[in-house]
């Protein structure tokens, strides 16, 4: 079994790609506005605080996890050339994905509590909720607004929220892996055609949703399911969603998505550059 060298290869590649992608995110979200301010002569009014948001790191990291782990061909080509089978590739990729998911949450956590909160919130509280200088509600993350006060113990709630974030990242990553493994079975031309078709269907659905033409019963049922999966069934206020239900639902979804991704990964074929 070539698990160890395969894992090492994929992990090195992931670290490099994530590092580069994060640098790009920082450049686009901070560097670019600063550069524009410098060029336009408004650098004096440029404020780092204004550029930052709670989701500044977590949302891009979620996107990177989804996109990066949806990609297969480059790594698979290299590994099959070097005598590594599809099963080992999938196992090693899943293990690397798991580590990158945890690492992503660590980075998000450090950013939120090491950079964002001290800069933005100035430790103001209103009715027990963190607020920014303008008095607006500032949860440490979107999920903190759902699970932030489930137990009432600040440290425990912080840990539980982080665990939900990790499961959320894992689900997103597994979704990427599943979609990527299916897409990899098609030629590049057909992949573009499928993406275009999905885009058109998505626009159509959004229009339907906007115009209220979607059967209300279906939509309500779906929303109810989402609420239940997020641990919000029967919960009357924000901050009190049940993180354990959310984690359990997330783990089940992730397992199903990983199983499907494995099924299709075992059907991958080498495609030359």
């Amino acid at each position, binding site marked *: *079994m*070539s698990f160890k*060298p*395969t894992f*090492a*290869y994929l992990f090195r590649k992931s670290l490099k790609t994530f590092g580069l992608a994060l640098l790009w995110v920082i450049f686009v979200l901070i560097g670019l506005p600063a550069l524009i301010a410098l060029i336009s002569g408004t650098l004096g009014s440029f404020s780092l605080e204004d550029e930052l948001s709670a989701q500044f790191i977590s949302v891009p990291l979620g996107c990177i996890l989804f996109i990066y782990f949806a990609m297969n061909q*480059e790594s698979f*080509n*290299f*590994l*099959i*050339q*070097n*005598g*590594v*089978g*599809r*099963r*080992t590739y999938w196992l090693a990729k899943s293990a690397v994905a798991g580590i990158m998911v945890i690492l992503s949450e660590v980075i998000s956590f450090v950013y939120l509590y090491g950079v964002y909160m001290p800069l933005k919130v100035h430790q103001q509280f209103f009715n027990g909720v963190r607020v920014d200088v303008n008095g607006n509600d500032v949860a440490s993350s979107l999920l903190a607004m759902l699970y932030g006060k489930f137990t009432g113990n600040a440290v425990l709630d912080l840990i539980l929220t982080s665990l939900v974030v990790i499961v959320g990242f894992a689900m997103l990553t597994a979704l990427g892996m599943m979609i990527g493994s299916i897409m990899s079975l098609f030629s590049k031309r057909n992949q573009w055609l499928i993406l275009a078709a999905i885009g058109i269907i998505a626009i159509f659905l959004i229009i339907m949703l906007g115009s209220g033409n979607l059967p209300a019963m279906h939509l309500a049922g779906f929303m109810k399911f989402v609420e239940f999966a997020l641990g919000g069934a029967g919960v009357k206020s924000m901050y009190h969603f049940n993180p354990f239900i959310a984690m359990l639902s997330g783990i089940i979804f992730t397992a199903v998505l990983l199983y499907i991704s494995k099924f299709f990964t*075992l*059907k991958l*074929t*080498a495609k*030359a*550059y």
Partner: protein
Amino acid sequence: MNELKLTEVKKHYGNKSVLDGVTVQLQPNTIYGLLGRNGAGKSTLLNIVTNRIPATAGSVTMNDRDVTNNDEALQQMYLMSEANLYNPRLRVNEIFKETARMYGGFNFGLASRLAHEFGLNVNARNGKLSTGYRSIYKLIVALCVPADYIFLDEPTLGLDANHRDLFYRTLMDTYAERPRTFVIATHLIEEIAHIIERLVIIKTGSVLVDSSVEETLAQSHVILGPQAEVAAYTAGLNVIGEESLGQLKVRYVYGALDDKILPDTVRIDGMDLQKLFIELTNEEGDEHVI
């Protein structure tokens, strides 16, 4: 040494059959020539053996274990082919290092010497290399990996005569130093005729010949003489081709010659591998019985 066996391997793309029941057992420490015309299925077969693509039916086993997604077996094989599976941004020396990590060994000394002899810039990116140098770095990898089965699909693509000569010499040197099985799929039959020990000829997806070069050539005859005498002598033999030159006739026979008395005017010569291949795989005329 591991034993690699292909049993009734078939490959279909839609309604098109590329391989139609290939059965071959690759012997250890032997240099094979895998010959076939364009589209015969050589590359498809090598891709199936090394698990790059799945077979429609049949099996490839190493020591009686299926090689599909079997790392232990796959790590005993390396396929060098025209298809570029390395990232174009990778540098040649990075490819050497990554290969060493994956295979758990690599002859860096030999790789360095060969890179120097071939004039290969190991700091160049894979995507920036010419076709010839892309073949060269892949050949170097193939010769330096610690695998028991090395498959070379059109190994000399884009190589000039000097580099081809250097490659064949190096192949023989490394083979003498560390015997393993090489399977060379090529159209340059004359160039490999003197180095291969066994021959596998594929015609329209099926194995036509699978035997040692010596045995194959011993059964290949050129019968030359006046038309009538040659026709009479070869009647009932496995004639795989013929040519006429005025009153003279040449017939190519594959298989045993009968105990007929050879007329004084008729001569029997041996056939070279390339001529044998051409006559055996010629699309014109009848199917030959092997």
